């Protein structure tokens, strides 16, 4: 338990995830390899500070957020990987009523992956909220403001239930210049209290299909990916309420290495379908609009003599969605540096975002991310 609410306790989702992890660990292939492959462990701490300003009709809203992920990854060879970590998030909103802080929120993450013969990889992952209490009305309003920035800052999520995912991927084609992968996942989403009057939301479970192709095109390495996800029906107060539309993402990345320099161009197109809302007296009729998002990025990085440098620019363009950022465009230039020091690795990244939301309202943002990684075993 961090900061607020009832003490953390063992929940069915945790037990479920522990069961999956046990399956991963006890799988025959993993056991055989575990005797032979060296154990490696790595811990990573990567604090991040971010500030967003968003112009509204009544003035500017400011949101400051700090995000502290702490991760531990243990691997035995290429076929067994276990991860665990916590995300601690603290947020503050100023400029509009109500201003205030939303502290002490966080998630616990657990995950495991195993490689099986025949180029099959299975995984299980869970994300468990470290607090279970609903937010009082004033904090609900703060959370609502924070969620305006959610698209680009996904860990702003102020409250959410447990999530458990089962993942499977297979590589049917493995050639020297072409790889093809397909996979599927199922995500079970636990219910949680939304308001302090006890109203519960149970988001619909999500089924995903994915395919990917890696190819060598002359001096370039290209990767194409397609993910299609279909969420189930979400319930409010124990009854069906709404269904978010299905989503598809098409991604393309092209990488070029030239000695110590590496360049990468990424483009992703998200297509979100319309959702539907059931007719209920407690639901205000509103369209569940879909939309699309085009994001792109160009990065350059250089690593030499234990030092790494990088610079890049990302862009995002939203069309069709409802809400103040439903139609928005912004770009984010960034610079970063890293240094390897024996078993430690240090990194820093600075970015600035500028753009416009609906009705030409300004969006500005800046972020500073630091990271420290230490190899414990190798």
């Amino acid at each position, binding site marked *: 338990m961090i900061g607020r609410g009832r003490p953390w306790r063992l929940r069915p989702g945790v037990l479920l995830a522990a069961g999956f992890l046990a399956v991963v660990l006890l799988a025959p292939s993993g056991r055989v390899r575990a005797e032979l492959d060296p154990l490696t462990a790595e811990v990573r701490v990567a604090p991040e500070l971010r500030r967003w300003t968003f112009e509204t009709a009544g003035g500017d809203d400011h949101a400051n957020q700090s995000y502290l992920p702490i991760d531990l990854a243990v691997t035995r060879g290429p076929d067994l990987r276990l991860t665990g970590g916590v995300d601690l998030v603290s947020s503050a909103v100023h400029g509009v009523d109500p201003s205030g802080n939303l502290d002490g929120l966080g998630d616990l993450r657990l995950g495991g992956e195993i490689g099986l013969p025949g180029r099959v990889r299975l995984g299980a992952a869970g994300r468990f909220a470290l607090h279970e209490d609903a937010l009082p009305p004033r904090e609900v309003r703060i959370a609502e403001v924070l969620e305006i920035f959610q698209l680009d800052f996904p860990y702003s999520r102020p409250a959410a239930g447990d999530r458990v995912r089962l993942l499977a991927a297979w590589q049917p084609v493995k050639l020297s210049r072409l790889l093809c992968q397909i996979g599927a996942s199922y995500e079970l989403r636990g219910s949680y209290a939304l308001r302090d009057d006890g109203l519960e939301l149970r988001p619909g479970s999500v089924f995903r299909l994915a395919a990917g192709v890696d190819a060598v095109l002359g001096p370039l390495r290209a990767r194409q990916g397609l993910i299609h996800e279909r969420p189930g029906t979400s319930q409010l107060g124990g009854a069906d309420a*709404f269904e978010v539309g299905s989503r598809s993402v098409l991604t393309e990345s092209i990488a070029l290495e030239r000695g110590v320099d590496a360049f990468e161009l990424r483009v992703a197109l998200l297509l979100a379908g319309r959702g539907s809302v059931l007719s209920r007296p407690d639901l205000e009729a509103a369209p569940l609009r879909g939309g699309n998002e085009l994001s792109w990025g160009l990065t350059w990085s250089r690593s030499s003599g234990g030092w790494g440098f990088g610079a890049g620019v990302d862009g995002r363009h939203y069309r069709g969605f409802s809400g103040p950022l439903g139609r928005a465009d912004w770009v984010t230039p960034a610079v970063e540096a890293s240094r390897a020091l024996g078993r430690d690795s240090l990194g820093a990244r600075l970015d600035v975002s500028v753009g416009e939301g609906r009705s030409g309202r300004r969006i500005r943002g800046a972020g500073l991310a630091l990271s420290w990684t230490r190899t414990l075993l190798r």
Partner: protein
Amino acid sequence: MNEDGASRTCGPARALLWLVLVPLLLPATAGAADAPGGRREALSLLAQGDALNARALFDSLLTVDPTDLTAGYLAARSDEQAQRPYRARCGYLEIEAVAPGTEEAELAGARRRTLEREEADRRFNLGPGWITSEKSRAPLTGALLLLPLEPLGEPAGAGYYGLSWTYLLHQALRGSGFCPLSIPSMLLVEDLLVDGKAVRAPTEISSLPVNTIGGLRARLAVLSGLTGEVYLESRDGGWDEDLRDALRQFQVDHQLPPTGEADLETQTTLERVLDGWLLQAPPPLPPHLVPRAMELLGASLAVRGTFRNEGGEVWVELTLLEPDGASLTQEPIVLHFPAGQTNRWAWVAAQRLAMAAGFDLATGSRPASNLSPESLESATRLLLLFDRGVGRLGERRWVELPREAFRWSLVREARTFTDVSAKQWDEREARLKARWGGAVQLDAARGLEALLRDLDAGASAEPGPFQVLGSRGTLVIRGNGP
């Protein structure tokens, strides 16, 4: 957006864009710009057999980027190709020490072990007369000879504990100012100097199965009968009367019916006897023979020592010797510790040895995991068998090894070396060269992992709960995005 707003937001944005674009547009530094061409040129020279010029080019590339492990590995490979095995071996040891677990370190370990085997086999094939010849002396290399510790208060040669120390010190001192000498050659020289007979099964013997004529002849040509003479004079030849006689003599010595035929029982006994012969612990080297051993191997320094093991407590005394046999330091290094902590204390001893000679251990050097005395002995026996020439240690030997022994990275390295065929090592090296030389390659495992990560992340951020729940007390569905 108004004019003022535009100028306010675009100013910093423009500055940052320049910050991004300028490094992209600026020409890279001379060394780095030359790196891709230099790499291809160096690889081309190496492929053409111009090892010395390739070595020079690898050195230049290492000046630009001293952390380039592949360049370091290929520099050592050039040394090997240029007939400078000592330099190549030390280069390989350094890579193994500074970057354990990397592809380069595994390839370096494989090349080093191959070199050590070839060197020991070559010396073995020179025959016992080699060590008595006045001309037999290796050029002084600055390397360190690690002699097995001698037991005090126990029958000479009992157990493998003294040899465990050789392996542990060898591992800890990789990549330090010392370049520890090859253990297979050390074992060979020690056997020859003390007993006048080499205990070794060269690759051409151990690689031939016992159920072949070549395999039978090779084994009978190295094993001695009760008379002290080898069963068969020459390994060359076919199924002749000499081989039948040798088989009969072997069968008589081992209480088998003297048929002169290589039946299954004879074959099994032959394998068992060969194993037992190869597994005899190396004899202690008397002090007066240490300078000669150093001379034969080209060592500039040697570590000699003793141990006493009583009631689970171990006392170890180590001395660093110069080529004339004189001690380099005034006081020996003395250690006292529980027997179950040998691996850690051997690392401490390596640190003190390095300090005494004015060196440092390699960056990142850590003590090997402690093993129980039984596991340490089992692991050492297996390593001894390996270093006396047995090329492919069968699965049975690994299964019989206590699981705990695999905590020692030296055991895992030996297993990797024996499990991977020479052809597979060559393929791995070719892939490394292609990758380093700029050829674009795909990593099948990473492709699969990336897809799993995509599935884990999902299509995009989901609508947050407070996008669903409005603040006005009624529920409002606001949409898929903000």
